[in-house]
């Protein structure tokens, strides 16, 4: 299944925690400029899988291949250097700080004197706001507090931040959780922005409608295994729901290709 356009390839990944098997022989790929959905119940192993990709956990066995380079495991630092960025559920934002400080959180730009390049970071934040976020709803400036923004806007900031730092693969962990319908639409627009920017995305969401709408390919994880995958363009949401019911009962997609 792996082709030379694959950005990320996981092969035979297994991981146990103190005798509890979280992942069993999981193999999957993410193509260049592809939005891949990861769908599965709570405790199915999605989080563990993501943590292996972002370097928080090392797999017990299996390999990770990134642009043709094979790794036994990644570290957080290495994953970042490669261009893998995660947007966490909590979005990792600091509410009382201005937007520009959030965009550059932990990666502050400095001048040759070792001092913060405040003007430069503000200007880049402004550019990011115009080009990616397109904040139109209210007076948002690089000095605005992130805490005063809506859930969708905050999600946008987190995604924009990842893209700004040249992430080639953005992992979104339940980005629409707790958001209103309008804010969810906004967030999905930002996910499309990842595709438009020529990057890839792993999209994790419990909402089957969101997954069906935004993902080009969906991988279903069930009890630590890949139950199968499908292309939303080839089936309706209703067929999809039927398939997932089947997975819940049998652990496999009906007529699965996986």
């Amino acid at each position, binding site marked *: 299944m792996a082709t030379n356009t694959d950005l990320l390839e996981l092969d035979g990944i297994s991981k146990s925690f103190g005798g509890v098997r979280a992942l069993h022989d999981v193999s999957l790929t993410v193509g260049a400029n592809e939005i891949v959905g990861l769908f599965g119940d709570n405790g199915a192993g999605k989080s563990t899988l993501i943590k292996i990709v972002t370097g928080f956990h090392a797999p017990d066995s299996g390999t990770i291949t990134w642009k043709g380079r094979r790794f036994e495991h990644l570290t957080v630092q290495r994953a970042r250097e490669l261009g893998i960025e995660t947007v966490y559920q909590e979005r990792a934002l600091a509410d009382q*700080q201005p937007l520009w400080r959030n965009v550059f959180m932990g990666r502050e730009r400095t001048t040759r004197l070792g001092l913060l390049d405040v003007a430069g970071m503000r200007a880049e934040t402004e550019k990011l706001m115009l080009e990616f976020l397109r904040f139109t709803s209210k007076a948002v400036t690089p000095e605005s507090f992130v805490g005063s923004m809506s859930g969708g806007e905050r999600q946008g900031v987190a995604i924009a931040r990842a893209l700004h730092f040249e992430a080639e693969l953005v992992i979104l962990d339940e980005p629409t959780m707790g958001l209103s319908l309008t804010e969810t639409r906004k967030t999905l627009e930002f996910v499309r922005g990842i595709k438009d920017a020529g990057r890839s995305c792993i999209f994790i969401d419990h909402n089957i409608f969101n997954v069906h709408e935004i993902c080009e390919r969906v991988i279903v994880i069930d009890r630590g295994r890949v139950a199968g995958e499908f292309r939303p363009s080839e089936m309706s949401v209703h067929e999809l729901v039927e398939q997932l019911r089947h997975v819940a009962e049998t652990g496999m997609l009906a007529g699965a290709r996986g």
Partner: protein
Amino acid sequence: MTVVRTDASGVLPRRGPKSFLELASVRRYGLQAGTFAMALVLWILFAVGASETWLHFDIYSSLMSTVPLTGIVALALTMVVIAREIDVSFGSVMAVGAWAFVAVGQPELGLVAGLAAGLGVGLLNGIIVVRFGVPSLVATIGSWFFWAGIVLYGTGGKGAGTDFAAGFVTNLVTGRIGGYVPAEFPWMLGIAIVLWVLLNRHRFGAHTYLIGDNEQSARMMGVRTDRVRIAVFALVGTAAAFAGIATTLESNYFWPTTGSGAMLPTVAAVFLGGTSIFGGRGTIFGTVVAAFVIGAIEPGIVSIGWTGLLTQVIYGAVIVGALIMQAYVVRRVR
């Protein structure tokens, strides 16, 4: 489908904020502006009530020698509070620094030894809080008593003169520039400027704000939060040792109880200066102004004819009042 990207012109429409409290500058510096206004009101009150005192240079010369003794510690403590921690042990650390200074008995080496002792105690505080996970209030209450006890035990309760330091070091720390301006004042201003740069124009300060605001976020984004948190405690320790040495040189005598009265005015200066007890917010400028307001309260109330015994009452009221204001602003503004 809703299309969000309707703004083809790429120009952000900027509507004005809805209310005064929503102005970014008001939200950021409102508390500091309040402190500044309070300083002005107090000054006018004192200047009218006791003009012979407050319209002459002497009182300011006096404030310039007393305020920095707590102000320098308050400046460093501002960083700790922004990082959402607290340190109440600085009074004892003042004594530790001063004791190390006189115990060495050689002025230059003593200065270095005193500062190093303060740095050491500060680092230890930081390590207890960060590595062992003890809440900073509890940890530093313990360290407050512990180090005060060590100094009392080590000195046998006896003080010592500072004649050995007469000359360069005494002039450096507490001399009178041009015969009038106490050296403590430019020291405080210099330290304020250095800390301002650190806080506003350096990664260290950026990370201090982020940690105080949301430590978990900062950690997830690669900020080395443990190091920064330990460092701010080390900063307070060093500043406290310097203040302790200055206090000792100013009175030409080391008392083992040095710093025991520093708690109230120092903490009051930080909170009155608008630094948030909830972390993530605070300014150096606010602390500088507030330190002088706090320092002016005692001579002020005495000069207008009240009793100096009221000083503590007012300090306490100022701390609680400032914290109520903060809680109010946090609720209204978020």
